[in-house]
């Protein structure tokens, strides 16, 4: 399995935990009080509770069911039912490789995590969930650029070996009120990292160049909604 995005860094604050699914692997992704991000199998070794329902205390994730505490290495270090007990070293959450790069949290559930290299000076736009396969979503994002009236300065580039990441240059329709997008000397780039949730759901995590204005980001966010509709309609018509 390849490295895939699971969230925009911005959307996982300190002391938060979220659920993420990657090619049918159910995960808990959480950030400690000091900012360390972890991605684990979404199952507490005690009685199988989804860890994404847990809560963060300092540098530990605590399970919602019986409050077992796990540190950033996944080791259980506190069992509230037995406060004096030092938990055996064998009690461990199942860890996946995770890293943050270019404002995105990347995970590989089976191997080393190697995110696609993107510029580091980007800003988060939004994540959008699309009800279609990753292939259809990727095609929709590509199509919608070249179909737009500003094909002249639109360039779609697949920047990785895998189909997971697309980099687009100025993909906005011309009628969007975004002057900075029209500036050919310093074009806004848009990066779309795709997460395969399962066969029928894909999440697109969208970032843009740092110099994109707020208006640009709003326009991009609307554009993403249109792409979603486009993708979901194309699924509907082939069924």
């Amino acid at each position, binding site marked *: 399995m390849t490295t895939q995005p699971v969230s925009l860094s911005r959307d996982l604050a300190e002391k938060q935990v979220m659920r993420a699914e990657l090619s049918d692997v159910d995960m808990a992704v959480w950030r400690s009080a000091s900012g360390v991000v972890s991605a684990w199998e979404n199952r507490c070794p005690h*009685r199988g509770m989804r860890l994404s329902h847990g809560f963060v205390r300092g540098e530990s994730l605590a399970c919602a069911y*019986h409050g077992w505490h796990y540190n950033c290495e996944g080791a259980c270090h506190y069992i509230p039912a*037995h406060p004096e007990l030092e938990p055996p070293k*064998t009690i461990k959450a199942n860890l996946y490789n995770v890293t943050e790069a270019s404002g995105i949290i990347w995970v590989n559930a089976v191997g080393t995590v190697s995110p696609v290299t993107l510029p580091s000076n980007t800003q988060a736009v939004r994540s959008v969930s699309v009800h279609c396969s990753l292939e259809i979503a990727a095609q929709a994002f590509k199509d919608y650029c070249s179909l737009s009236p500003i094909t002249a300065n639109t360039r779609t580039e697949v920047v990785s070996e895998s189909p997971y990441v697309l980099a687009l240059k100025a993909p906005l329709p011309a009628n969007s009120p975004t002057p900075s997008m029209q500036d050919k000397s310093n074009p806004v780039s848009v990066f779309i990292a795709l997460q395969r949730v399962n066969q029928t759901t894909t999440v697109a995590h969208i970032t843009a160049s740092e110099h994109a204005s707020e208006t640009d980001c709003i326009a991009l966010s609307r554009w993403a909604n249109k792409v979603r509709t486009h993708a979901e309609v194309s699924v509907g018509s082939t069924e």
Partner: protein
Amino acid sequence: MNAALEHALQDWYPIAMLGELAPGERKQSRVLGIDVTVLANDSADETDSTPPITVRAEGAPVHVQQAFDHWWVCLGNAPKPLFSIEEAGEADRRFVPCGVVRVACSPLRAVENFLDIAHFPFVHTGVLGAEPHTEVYKYDVKVDETRDEVIATNIKFYQPQAAKSAEGGIQTEYIYRVPAPMAAVLYKTCPLKPEAMDVIALFVQPLDEQTCDVWPWMALYDDTSTQAELIQFQQLIFLQDRSILENQLPKKLPIDPGHEIPTKADYTSVAYRRWLKKRGAYYGALEAQP
């Protein structure tokens, strides 16, 4: 037919509360993956021998009996006797059938959760438990050979509001019984009558291996709360449990050791799993019957 289903078919399951259906009314339900129709019969006069209720599975009538304010059904051809709860015959208790809650989990997971106290401070925070009172002290578990039931005794736990009738925190004592694979009964200190114990039972109707309808029932000493208040209290507690039960993975209960990691606090659950395995009660279990 598989052995797990064949085994489960000989047990009794709740299907409706007494009086739930008006005469002539019917409802559809499911037991062990089999569609059933429940019909409250119109019996014109007292001498009429028509039973008050008829339950049919695939057209054929099945065994029906009434107990603990519920109608119970058995779809098998060799029904085991229904377990007993002696306190159901004590006239000074309040009997409170609490209705039904559907849960997307194995019926065995629902029972096991009911036997668990270590979750009180985290799942029923401020009601049945609260940090820092999280310790589970040593208690006793055994299988009562004559009744063939799992029994856990000498359980003590600090509770902020042990019952609707409790004023402030008390040290509560618990006893648990598992009289059938899909039923559990607990006895706990009665806040209004410390020499007696309240009874709360969980009767589980297996819709299939990963879905169940849970029918809580209580036999209490409480002459201050209304029936609606008592039901609301129990429902609140159970809805908190449901948020856990629907998020346990896998959905079916692993009964062989190795999949999950128990501690001393889980002795009741460990005994329950062993007891299920020994009697061949594999319906809702992760493993196939060996």
